């Protein structure tokens, strides 16, 4: 059977012994280009000039000091959430809940800032940092617990909890936490000065960037220089092998999800403390979802996530800058989805090579 099918097929996929290094660079770049072409098709079909739109997007993101600083500002939550997602994905734990974990982190940090407004900065900021991580981590522990205990599909539970977290924050900012002097807008009162992350160079770029860079470093150390990181990688490669090696998978599910959620929670903390200076409706425009693409595009590598986040930050800022001229805001998420599509399709090229002609040296058909 296999012999006949092999001799019939003229084009074959042959597994590479090692993933191709060249392809792992070419594929992401080509994916982005192809996605832009798809976007151009839809843009021109709806009466826009794609090249002008892209040029405007590029200038919006990189053409000015403000644009560049905004790109970094948008990249920070993507980095933190992306790092969180990557560590879970490494273990094949599909944490789609970064968005909700981000909201809960923002909630935790805001609770500290609003409940103890008199705290000095050197206590306030660490407390907000801790509360943000803790709330994000605990929120991720809910699906982790059900996954570890009863194998409940974490894709669905993490995603459902996103909606719950967003409604919870909405409840607070439309209800008990609403700023009485806020003209009925869904936002809390401004945090005290002490609850504000310091910024650099007079821009909106805040200490959250340092959080992200340090987190990436710490994550890299954990992954490649600790026993825990080794366990995470083994479980990701083969849960069965990990089980036989005596690795406690359930414990790792809980730990990794907590870490994953804590990083997303930190993203939420840095958004409220660094950018908004209050909790408000729609504190994240979907960073938790974009971060999934960031993590995958970066092949789950911590340092690559930092780099890729800048690109996606630029995409978001570029998207904002063309909205004024009537280009739908959804263009950006359409482009993001298309990038991921091409990336997934191209991945086969990283792990396989195309061979032409009948199969050789496989007469046994096994």
């Amino acid at each position: 059977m296999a012999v006949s099918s092999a001799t019939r097929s003229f084009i074959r996929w042959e597994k590479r012994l090692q993933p191709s290094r060249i392809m792992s660079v070419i594929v992401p770049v080509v994916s982005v280009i192809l996605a832009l072409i798809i976007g151009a098709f839809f843009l021109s079909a709806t009466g826009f000039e794609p090249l002008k739109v892209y040029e405007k997007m590029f200038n919006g993101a990189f053409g000015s000091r403000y644009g560049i600083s905004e790109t970094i500002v948008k990249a920070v939550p993507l980095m933190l959430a992306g790092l969180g997602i990557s560590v879970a994905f490494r273990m094949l734990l599909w944490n789609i809940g970064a968005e909700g974990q981000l909201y809960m982190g923002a909630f935790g940090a805001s609770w500290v800032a609003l409940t103890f407004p008199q705290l000095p900065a050197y206590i306030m900021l660490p407390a907000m940092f801790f509360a943000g991580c803790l709330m994000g981590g605990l929120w991720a522990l809910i699906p982790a617990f059900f996954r570890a205990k009863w194998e409940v599909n974490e894709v669905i539970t993490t995603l459902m909890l996103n909606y719950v977290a967003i409604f919870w924050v909405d409840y607070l900012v439309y209800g008990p936490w609403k700023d009485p002097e806020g003209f009925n807008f869904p936002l809390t009162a401004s945090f005290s000065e002490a609850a504000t992350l310091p910024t650099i160079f007079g821009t909106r770029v805040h200490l959250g960037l340092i959080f992200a860079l340090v987190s990436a470093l710490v994550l890299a150390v954990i992954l490649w220089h600790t026993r825990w990181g080794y366990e995470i990688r083994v479980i990701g490669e083969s849960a069965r092998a990990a089980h036989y090696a005596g690795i406690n998978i359930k414990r790792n599910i809980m730990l990794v999800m907590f870490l994953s959620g804590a990083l997303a929670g930190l993203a939420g903390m840095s958004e409220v403390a660094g950018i908004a200076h209050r909790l408000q409706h729609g504190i994240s425009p979907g960073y938790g979802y974009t971060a999934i693409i960031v993590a995958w595009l970066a092949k789950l590598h911590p340092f690559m996530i930092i780099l890729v986040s800048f690109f996606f930050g630029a995409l978001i800022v570029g998207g904002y800058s063309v909205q004024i001229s009537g280009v739908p805001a959804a263009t950006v998420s359409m482009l993001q989805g298309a990038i991921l599509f091409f990336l997934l399709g191209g991945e086969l090229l990283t792990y396989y090579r195309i061979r032409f002609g009948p199969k050789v040296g496989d007469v046994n058909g096994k």
Partner: protein
Amino acid sequence: MENSIWIATLAAAVTAGTPILYAALGEILAERAGVLNLGVEGMMLVGAVTGFIVAFLTKNPWFGFFMALLASGAVASVFAFLTISLRANQVVTGLALTIFGTGLSGFLGKAYIGIPLPVTFKTFVIPGLSQIPILGTIFFKHDPLIYLTYILTPFLWYYFYHTRPGLNLRAIGENPAAADAMGVNVFALRYFYVILGGMLAGAGGAYLSLVYAPTWLENMTAGRGWIAVALVIFAVWDPFKALLGSYLFGGVDTLAYSLQAATAVTIPSFFLKMLPYILTIIVLIISTRRTVIQRIGAPGALGIPYNREER
């Protein structure tokens, strides 16, 4: 009179459950074939926006519905190509489909947000059946798209368990290598069912924008695609149980809405809005527990790309 309110609520539950039912039936088809398509939410949105735009422009809801099927089938075929031919990771590809579908629908529908649909499906009271006390009002005073699910659900059940193609469908989901050896074309059939499943998801989306709303709003599915995915597990891949589950969720949706309207109840509306999502989690936990204990459930090859050379 208390009675008639409950009947009206149950009839509304059927209406609210129908988009989820369409999507869940579609996902059952894909998963029975061994392909986990998490892009339901995206496909529903593509169906919703296409259905609305076409129906709005042509003033023909049936044509809108038909085009919605084609559009969502088209995006499902992209997913099929990536996961079946290129063997891409099904979880991540499904997410990509949802992100892309959300973006694409928002892009296409921007000019149509909030516009009411001038012509929609008319309620058709079925003579005879609608006269049945209580049940008649709950089930037989609806629009044609609901009646379509009354035919589709038993048909799919019969197809799965009592026909040869249905047997092949289950075979490629349980053990594709064995099915392949029996001469069943695993790749072609997986394509077929993933695309068909996508069309049904699009039908669910179109139901939202053509009948339930009937208007277009960005992200108007509000997680119903994901609820449908969870429901498939609850339904242990059985069309009839999917129907029951969909009405259960439709009921919770309706209940949350009418509780909100009844201002005497002082539960903040945000907590009521959380209900369907929390219920999904609870239902998922219970049904996962049950499938584990009873050793029934997921198709054996669910989520695993079929690779002829590695069997």
